[in-house]
């Protein structure tokens, strides 16, 4: 195909987008909405992955002891833990210190109003594993210490990774739901696009029949419709990409500028997801658009 011909196809395709005003608008909106949902989910997933990586690197294992443990037993347990080769450090946090940290975190709130003079917190050890991937081993070995005593002195072993795992499970739930929504919307978008292009085909029926009569090739006749679908998909994906990136940038900006951020997350920097997001949303949008036009051409354009 010649460059000038391609230019013609592009002009024709873009003209139709405007000529079919409301239908184009509807198609673009449906694509934009579905891609917005998809994009928002992608941003969330990337951030959760980012978060889990950061957490894993600095993971701390908290070993909560049963409230009644005596100082002697605490020492015994500490020695037990120290024999685990994967543990790189042990810090004992007595319950008073734990309460102090807690009330600092609560700010103005006076905890003694709730607890009186008693301290409901357990003593705990804070451990660090020598490598992030050894955290699981350390946890199971610490839990195994319980079996050596009748009293089962260790109440609970908790570590940041658990929270992250819960978060991941939660997001995978969202993933299923949002994929279903996006698939449904993508289908609707395709339907809208194929209808928009059907309108173009009908309105240009006469033109097409003359083109066929004078010997235009099928490719020549089809191209403008491809371009039209392509344009609908492209515009429909540029809008949500722009909105999401701007929104994310503003969110990071807000979270970093204030101490009272909604979350204490460390956000994935904008530049690390910009290209992924643009590439993903635009290519899906374009595929939906072109697909819609192909459906329509099969049905209504007998060339």
């Amino acid at each position: 195909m010649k460059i000038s011909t391609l230019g013609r196809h592009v002009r024709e395709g873009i003209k139709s987008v405007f000529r079919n005003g409301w239908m184009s608008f509807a198609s673009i909106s449906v694509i934009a909405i579905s891609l917005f949902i998809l994009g928002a989910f992608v941003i969330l997933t990337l951030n959760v992955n980012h978060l889990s990586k950061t957490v894993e690197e600095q993971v701390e294992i908290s070993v909560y002891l049963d409230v009644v443990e005596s100082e002697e037993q605490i020492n015994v347990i500490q020695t037990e833990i120290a024999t685990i080769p994967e543990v790189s450090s042990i810090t004992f946090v007595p319950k008073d210190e734990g309460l102090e940290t807690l009330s600092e975190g609560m700010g103005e709130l006076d905890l003694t109003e709730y607890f009186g003079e008693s301290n409901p917190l357990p003593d705990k050890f804070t451990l660090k594993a020598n490598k992030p991937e050894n955290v699981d081993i350390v946890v199971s070995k610490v839990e195994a210490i319980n079996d050596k005593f009748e009293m089962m002195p260790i109440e609970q072993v908790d570590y940041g990774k658990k929270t992250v795992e819960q978060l991941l499970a939660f997001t995978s739930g969202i993933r299923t739901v949002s994929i279903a929504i996006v698939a449904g919307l993508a289908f609707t978008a395709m339907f809208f696009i194929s209808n928009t292009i059907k309108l173009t085909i009908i309105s240009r029926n006469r033109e097409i029949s003359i083109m066929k009569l004078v010997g235009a090739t099928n490719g020549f006749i089809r191209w403008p419709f491809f371009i039209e679908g392509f344009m609908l998909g492209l515009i429909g994906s540029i809008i949500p990409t722009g909105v999401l990136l701007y929104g994310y940038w503003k969110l990071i900006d807000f979270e970093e500028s204030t101490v009272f951020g909604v979350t204490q997350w460390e956000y994935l920097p904008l530049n690390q997801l910009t290209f992924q997001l643009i590439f993903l949303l635009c290519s899906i949008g374009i595929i939906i658009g072109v697909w819609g036009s192909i459906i329509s051409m099969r049905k209504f354009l007998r060339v």
Partner: protein
Amino acid sequence: MIEMQDVWKSYTNGVHALRGVDVKIDQNEFVYLVGPSGAGKSTFMKMIYREVKPTKGEIFVNGFNLGKLKNKKIPYVRRNIGVVFQDFRLLPKISIYENVSFAMEAIEAPKKLVRKRTMEVLTMVGLKDKVKSLPNQLSGGEQQRASIARAIVNNPSVIIADEPTGNLDPDTSLDILKLLEEINFRGTTIVMATHNKDIVNNYRKRVIAIEKGQIVRDEYRGEYGYEN
């Protein structure tokens, strides 16, 4: 040039439009196709530019065996055939110039050639001064001239004209016929379906009469008319 050998055409609705047509039309002939409505004239003509495919029999146009032609090749056969209709079929929203140049652009002719050739044919059909007009600003005769210009712009070797004077008054019809004669004189084969008795009888050429899907008469310098 154009050759049909025992061509049959049945449509899916049970109509037998052509029933065993044998005919040969040589390069540079001018042929009138006459016959009552529904006799099969349109099918005969559509067969030539491969709008319809024969149910049985063979048809050759410019050396192509149309019955066996792959769909992909159809455009290339049509580039050698110009088609003119009773209702002109011009695109209403674009100028006369664009209506004609459009036919060249559709086959991706070089831009320079498009301008030159479009003006050339529009001058030939006498519409040089109306190139910027829209179709509805022209008279019926002028619109038909424009559609003829469009049909010949790609230099086809055959013109198929389906009642080109059907919507025109007698004087204008004559102008159109003379234009077609001129095109024929330059070497293009013309196949023209018509109900215009005066033209057929006064400008004698080969007459092929079709009735009930069969050729009932084929005469050089023939008269208008068919059996019933």
